[in-house]
């Protein structure tokens, strides 16, 4: 076992780490948008919107992330090309990174739907009614009364989803994405030292989790009610 071999591979592993982190951040961005839409759909009370959101969250909660990623990448590849053939297009290669972002965003958007909906329901109804009685419009109420509090109530759940999401990015290496796990796997096989490389990946993930924990602790303190615990 040769620990020093890692030094030669630091640039490669860093490149992988950048891919992993970008994947996680873009995935979170998409998940936040989908989560907000999902929560809005559920809260709107509309029959069709509610049913669509329920279908979405049910599928995601019932199927492993790995299966969804494979389905979105390989299934999507086939779908795009079947449609492309109709228009006489050449073979289209889907981006692995794009498929990864799409999958991660799709999966965690479902979890954030619940987080946002729960947080919204925690806001006392009287506040919205008070804002209306003051003559504020629906949009102004949402923007200045509901959303600032939504951030506070949703933060702990949001932090939780992020921690699970980060670990989930590892699975995207299965479709051949050159992220931290994929590159470490290749490098470990090349130099016949998989143990060291996978240990390094574990340490890197522990570091990601630790850093994000610090950031979220800070945010929760900042958005906490003065004189109250951060939840």
């Amino acid at each position, binding site marked *: 076992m040769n620990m020093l071999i890692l030094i030669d591979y630091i640039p490669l592993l860093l490149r992988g780490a950048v891919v992993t982190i970008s994947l996680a951040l873009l995935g979170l961005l998409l998940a936040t948008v989908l989560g907000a839409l999902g929560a809005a759909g559920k809260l709107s009370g509309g029959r069709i919107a509610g049913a669509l959101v329920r279908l979405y969250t049910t599928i995601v909660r019932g*199927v492993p992330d790995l299966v969804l990623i494979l*389905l979105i990448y390989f299934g999507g590849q086939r779908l795009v090309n079947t449609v492309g053939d109709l228009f006489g297009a050449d073979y289209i290669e889907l981006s692995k990174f794009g498929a990864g972002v799409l999958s991660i965003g799709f999966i965690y958007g479902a979890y954030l739907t619940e987080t946002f909906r729960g947080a919204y329901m925690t806001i006392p109804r009287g506040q919205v009614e008070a804002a209306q009685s003051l003559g504020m419009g629906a949009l102004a109420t949402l923007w200045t009364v509901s959303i600032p509090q939504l951030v506070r109530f949703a933060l702990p759940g949001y932090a939780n989803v992020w921690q699970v999401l980060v670990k989930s990015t590892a699975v995207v290496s299965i479709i051949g994405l050159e992220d931290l*796990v994929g590159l470490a796997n290749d490098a470990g096989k090349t130099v*016949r030292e*998989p143990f060291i490389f996978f240990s390094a990946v*574990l340490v890197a*993930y*522990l570091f990601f989790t*630790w850093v994000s924990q610090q950031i979220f602790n800070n945010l929760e303190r900042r958005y906490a009610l003065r004189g109250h615990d951060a939840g």
Partner: protein
Amino acid sequence: MRVDLVLQNWELFAGGVWVTAQLTFLSLFFGFCIALPCGLARARRVGWASPLINGYVYLFRGTPLLVQTYLIYYGLSQFEFIRDSWAWIFLREAWWCALIAFTLNSGAYATEIIRGAVETTPKGETEAATALGLAPRQVTWLVLIPSALRRALPQYGNEVVFMLHGSAVASVITIQDILGAGRTLNARYYVAYEGFITAALLYMAITFTLVMIFRQLEKRYLRHLNIRPAKKSHAIPA
């Protein structure tokens, strides 16, 4: 979607369901065996054990299951002394490596669940037991553990589903579980959706069966904690 391919190969998927069920059940079982003593020791802050258990839980909860599985399957086999030892009988088999990784992973999550449940047990429960003359060991086994495990049920139900979904990682190290069967089907007939969609439906069916079972268990074992408004109004004499 060519359903005929799936139906023709139903035995492939039946085998996959069996392997997934085995891996999930066994890793949950052995994980629980690790978690019960670890969770209790953590809740009671046993001096020498607490930091060790903390390290274990932090490592396995803070990193992806896929990498843990890789480390055990690919990582350990690089060492000569492991290949020469008795452990190689197990570690050369993908199935055992997956089981070991899943067990350690589930053990870490369940430790946290049990620790939380033990810590939130009302002090009055154990004090009452002591006052009735139960020995410390009896208090632990007859009062503390049954009470804590009941309240851990909802979270443990989540962990069971999490493990079922996590077990799909086994297919990556060549095991023919549900997803493995789906990938085999796709490769054999050069199709893109059929195998994965079948796998997704099977996972979904198992997930919602498990969710339903846990809902029934919760109804039964947490009845004393459920104060339902419907029941309350029923109790008021008309």
